[in-house]
């Protein structure tokens, strides 16, 4: 029995059945070279399911649906990643999934208490500063990765949850404004704007323009939350000014974008099939080859293309598992984001956090899927929870933890009860500690 006294037996049974049916599909339709590899994969999937479900029993939460959804999606991605090209357990992706689940719990425990975040805002600013410094001074020639032996980290991925936290924390101090020339602005809003400008400049400098729309959408969400908070009416003047600034920035970015971006914006992939359009052409051919039900796990040919398991992972899944399964995977991620709407958060902080996380994941998904299908220029952004990459998985796990925190927040009286309990704890000599 879970700690909110609700029964989840049907969900748990269906969760196991989902994974078992996918493993059965691998067994019957896949190209199995060694049955041992399939047994290893099945053991990893079931082990991850059972392990995480037991861990969630230890936490007091009001909602558990996000945990089930995350577990389902991660294990699906583990099965997908282990079947690209040949059926072999992807240990690296399994490790990423475990780290993702761990960071989800960390995200939940660290962000559910808005009073603590309010008090410790300076540490989040410091963390963002450190990430900036690490990008500027410690990344390699591509200005994106920090290489530590056989591991590499992408610091810009970790900026996403930090930026959302800054947006959420700053909304709590909205009323503490100071006058600067003609404008009334709170100190936190000013810091947020500076952080946003610095992030955009850094992304531009790193030539990581694929992440810019994600950060842009998070910032836009933060502005919208400020303008139209639940019962307030939208100030037309403020909205108009913001829209004008946004359009101006977009026009400038469009005109001053680097040459390779301009080229990518206007490239005809079929005319340049073996050049700049190679990945997209192969991805589209792969999607067409897969059809509705796919060619079977391990039977595809997209695994020979560069970044088949990250940038064009949607096309690789379509080829091997079929469009139906790929669309269902995306639907599951969308349902995970939509379940949050059923239980709207009850504080400024959690509402902003939920909106920011939803915007971030939606932007990333759109950029990856539409980029693979040549509906928008190819950006090279990862598909959340599915693409390989430890940094991306850890960051996505933390984001889901933040969503969970919005669903199971700590209210003031619970915090006060905790404080009282701590105060009443007897010391070793039997005297109550102060």
């Amino acid at each position, binding site marked *: 029995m879970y700690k909110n006294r609700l029964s989840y037996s049907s969900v748990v049974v269906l*969760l196991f059945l*989902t994974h078992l049916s996918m493993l059965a599909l691998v067994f019957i339709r896949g190209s199995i070279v060694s049955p041992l590899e399939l047994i290893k994969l099945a053991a990893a999937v079931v082990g991850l399911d059972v392990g995480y479900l037991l861990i969630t029993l230890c936490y007091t939460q009001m909602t558990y649906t996000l945990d089930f959804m995350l577990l389902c999606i991660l294990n699906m991605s583990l099965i997908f990643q282990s079947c690209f090209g040949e059926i072999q357990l992807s240990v690296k992706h399994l490790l990423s999934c475990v780290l993702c689940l761990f960071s989800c719990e960390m995200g939940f425990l660290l962000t559910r208490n808005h009073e603590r975040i309010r008090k410790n805002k300076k540490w989040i600013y410091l963390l963002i500063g450190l990430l900036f410094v690490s990008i500027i001074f410690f990344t390699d020639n591509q200005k994106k990765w920090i290489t530590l032996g056989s591991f590499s980290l992408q610091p810009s991925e970790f900026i996403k949850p930090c930026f959302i936290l800054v947006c959420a924390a700053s909304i709590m101090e909205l*009323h503490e404004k100071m006058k600067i020339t003609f404008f009334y602005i709170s100190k936190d809003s000013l810091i947020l704007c500076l952080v946003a400008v610095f992030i955009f400049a850094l992304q531009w400098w790193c030539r990581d323009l694929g992440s810019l729309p994600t950060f842009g959408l998070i910032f836009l969400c933060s502005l919208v939350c400020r303008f139209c908070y639940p019962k307030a009416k939208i100030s037309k003047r403020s909205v108009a000014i913001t829209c004008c600034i946004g359009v101006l920035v977009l026009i400038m970015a469009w005109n001053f974008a680097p040459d390779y971006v301009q080229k990518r914006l206007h490239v005809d992939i079929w005319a340049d099939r073996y050049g700049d359009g190679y990945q997209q052409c192969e991805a589209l051919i792969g999607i067409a080859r897969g059809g509705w039900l796919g060619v079977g796990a391990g039977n595809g040919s997209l695994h020979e293309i560069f970044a088949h398991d990250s940038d064009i992972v949607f096309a690789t899944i379509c080829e091997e598992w079929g469009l139906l399964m790929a669309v269902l995977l995306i639907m599951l991620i969308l349902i995970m984001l939509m379940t949050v709407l059923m239980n709207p958060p009850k504080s400024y902080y959690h509402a902003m956090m939920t909106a920011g996380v939803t915007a971030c994941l939606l932007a990333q998904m759109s950029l990856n899927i539409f980029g693979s299908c040549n509906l928008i220029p190819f950006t090279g952004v990862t598909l959340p929870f599915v693409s390989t990459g430890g940094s991306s998985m850890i960051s996505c796990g933390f984001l889901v933890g933040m969503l969970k925190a919005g669903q199971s927040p700590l209210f003031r009286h619970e915090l006060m009860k905790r404080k009282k309990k701590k105060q009443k704890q007897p010391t070793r000599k039997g005297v109550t500690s102060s």
Partner: protein
Amino acid sequence: MQDLLPELQRLWEWLKETLSELWTLITSLQVPDLVLSAAAVLILDLFAIAIIFAARRESRLCQKRWHRVSNDLELQCRIAQNEYHYPLEADEILLGRHSSADIQIKDSSVSRYHAVMTVTGGTWYITNLHAKTGTFVNEQKIQQKKLAVGDCIRLGNTHLYLTERPFPEEGR
């Protein structure tokens, strides 16, 4: 013990034969791809539906919890013969003239961010936010005050009444 050993060996041999026959049977089965894939997709759909139902049950539970926290109250305000009702649906509610306040009061005597209401274990508190015209509860000027049902809050020239919601939601 010596009798048991050959029995176990016979059992092991039988088990191995049965398993190898079962393996041959499974691998020779030609289940249509469509049936298998459709079954997997159906199970995935059922999982998604079960999750949505679970989320609905959780939502009701969270609403009950929120009713216990907030005591299910609302603010009533009368402006020019119109009566406005503001349900208290967040643990911190900002009252003021500015459009980004939770409850916007269009009255020039009210400050941009005039007061903030917070809830603790079913009890609401109001705190004045350095408003020049002050915040009054039952015509007493306050800095911070615990509120009770029926209290009259005055911000500038606007009166607000803390009342119980007329039709509490089903979740209570």
